[in-house]
């Protein structure tokens, strides 16, 4: 039907195709997995990286941004890991389990596998699982997921990750931190499959630490939330000024279930947090929050699609963006309501605060509604710091920088507080302060 015209590959695209040839023999997986990888790299070969003419990447032109592509990171050297983990501990002394993925591969030795098993959570190596019979099933996307260039890139290169299985009815005593560590330079492609059994409850902290160098980091979280289950995911996307972070969630939500997430971006040169959320059972709820910060020449992109495929589900999307320097913020949010998804309740809001003249925000909230008995709303605002508020604080003796910090924190805290995960609230606000101090 379509005649594909060969495209001229950019340096980064040529690099990626070469890297794939170099790496393919060493990448884990069954014959079926290898075929999925092959199909994914063919798509890259044909279409190139996602670019501004692809609607979903209109404001975040990955093709133009990536000048080259680094080889996949080599296996991490164990001796360095503990000190790296200790140095970059985003959640301080918060009591939690830990699962470590370093340079793309699951590290059993640094993860609390046995303690988690006692709680009813089975953690296994995605790299091993890909070799097994169900490997291709793990790597394949749900039918509802879009054909997305970043996910395809992940499929082609995936090195490893974890498969977490929270058994039916299990409620963990504390959260799990899933740390993705860059112990040395190089790209990483990581895939996690996280299943929350019926009536089970998991609080997940997702962090990305280490010196990622110039290599891009591409991680896909594939959540399967069963009936009556509950997942709260706090995602902290941080990184150095040269870091590229492409993080994707695919969430499939059963009946009477709850999915809550907060995507926090601060620091990377190019960060995209994209979430594809699909309701498959009735009476469920998704609450999606975002705290989005960018300065310098950074780009911070929060993109999501919530598919109300069934009736009687609620979704709430609340995103806050703060921009400084010549940075760019992107919010693309779409709520789809299928023809029979009556009684859907969807409410989406995105608000941006611009601290400089050169910063730019692209807000794109969308509703696509085919049912007639629904409540859906969306809104978007962009503004500057209110000079009258600033003057009031300064007139009380608070220096300008501190007063700005207070106001920015107040702006962002609305989303953090509504996310309402008490034990992480203070630590997230601390991260905001840290980011502001650097800008």
């Amino acid at each position, binding site marked *: 039907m379509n005649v594909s015209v060969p495209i001229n590959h950019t340096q980064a695209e040529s690099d990626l195709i070469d890297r794939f040839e170099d790496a393919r023999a060493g990448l884990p997986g069954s014959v079926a997995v290898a075929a999925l990888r092959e199909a994914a790299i063919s798509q890259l070969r044909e279409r190139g990286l996602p670019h501004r003419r692809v609607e979903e990447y209109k404001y975040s032109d990955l093709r133009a941004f990536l000048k080259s592509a680094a080889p996949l990171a080599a296996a991490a050297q164990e001796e360095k890991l503990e000190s790296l983990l200790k140095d970059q501990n985003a959640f301080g002394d918060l009591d939690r389990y830990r699962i470590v993925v370093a340079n793309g591969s699951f590290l059993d030795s640094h993860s609390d596998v046995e303690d988690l098993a006692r709680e009813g959570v089975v953690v296994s190596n995605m790299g091993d699982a890909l070799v097994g019979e169900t490997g291709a099933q793990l790597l394949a996307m749900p039918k509802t997921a879009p054909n997305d260039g970043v996910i395809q890139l992940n499929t082609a290169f995936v090195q490893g990750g974890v498969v977490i299985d929270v058994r039916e009815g299990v409620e963990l005593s504390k959260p799990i931190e899933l740390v993705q560590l860059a112990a040395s330079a190089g790209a990483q492609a990581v895939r996690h499959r996280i299943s929350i059994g019926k009536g089970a409850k998991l609080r997940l902290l997702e962090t990305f630490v280490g010196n990622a160098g110039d290599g891009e980091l591409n991680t896909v979280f594939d959540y399967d939330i069963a009936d009556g289950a509950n997942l709260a995911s706090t995602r902290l996307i941080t990184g150095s000024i040269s870091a590229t972070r492409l993080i994707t969630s695919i969430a499939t939500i059963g009946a009477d279930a709850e999915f809550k997430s907060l995507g926090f971006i601060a620091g990377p040169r190019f960060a995209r947090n994209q979430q594809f959320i699909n309701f498959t059972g009735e009476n469920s709820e998704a609450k999606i929050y975002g705290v989005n910060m960018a300065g310098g020449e950074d780009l911070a992109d929060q993109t999501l699609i919530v598919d109300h495929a069934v009736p009687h589900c609620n979704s709430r999307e609340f995103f806050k963006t703060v921009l400084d320097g010549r940075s760019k913020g992107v919010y693309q949010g779409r709520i789809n309501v299928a023809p029979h998804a009556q009684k859907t309740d969807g409410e989406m809001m995105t608000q941006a605060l611009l601290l400089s003249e050169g910063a730019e925000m692209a807000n794109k909230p969308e509703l696509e509604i085919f049912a007639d008995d629904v409540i859906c709303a969306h809104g978007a605002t962009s503004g500057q710091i209110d000079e*009258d*508020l600033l*003057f*009031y*604080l*300064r*007139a*009380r*003796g*608070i*220096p*300008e920088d*501190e*007063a700005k910090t*207070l*106001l920015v*924190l*107040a*702006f962002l*805290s*609305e989303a953090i507080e509504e996310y309402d995960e008490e034990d992480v609230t203070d630590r997230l606000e601390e991260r905001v302060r840290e980011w502001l101090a650097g800008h």
Partner: protein
Amino acid sequence: MLEIKNLHARIAEDETEILNGINLTVNPGEVHAIMGPNGSGKSTLSYILAGKDDYEVTEGEILFNGENMLEMEPDERAAAGMFLAFQYPIEIPGVATMEFLKTAMNAQRKARGEEQLSIPDFMKRVKAAASHLNVSMDMLKRPLNVGFSGGEKKRAEILQMSLLEPKLCVLDETDSGLDIDALRIVSEGVNKLRSPERAMVVITHYQRLLDHIVPDVVHVLSKGRIVKTGDKDLALELEKNGYADYVDTAA
């Protein structure tokens, strides 16, 4: 303490002249009232003292304890002891009142090279001041001024004033929007702060407030100049006869 010499000022944006040569000296321990009709420049004067950059001083100077006040940033003025009780205290969503008080007190202490307050010490001070002003703990937990009634906002201003212990208090129409009970509570709060080391400038339309906060000196401001100065009886006379005697009716 405060010396205003031949102060001329205008609105920065459209260059409308507001103040046309104000001279005013306020000594420690004194309470000065500034009265005048709408548009005479009372609020502008208070904003210029606090350092709002919507106004531009074109002539004259302001000395605060001998220092050139016009060269100081708003937060530096506050740390040096200047306090403006706003006519319309602003709502600051997301900033808890308690957190704001602690930040402001410690910022001023830091600027003056003093120790930061310990949490128990801070709490003790807040509780004591709040009880005098009938400010509840519930109010202190709420975001600053958000959802406060008019009276609550003014009480919160005076609470800040007592905690920050300024040298110069400028009260801009603190009586506006207050009922009789609230006026009494606020005035008592202000009177408690009267001391030989502290000066006050009370800006008001009405003599009513001056029954509660009795001034040493009363000035009448008209068209950006002080046109008459007297003792507290001047306020009574204004209440009776209005401002007509002091305002150039030909204008």
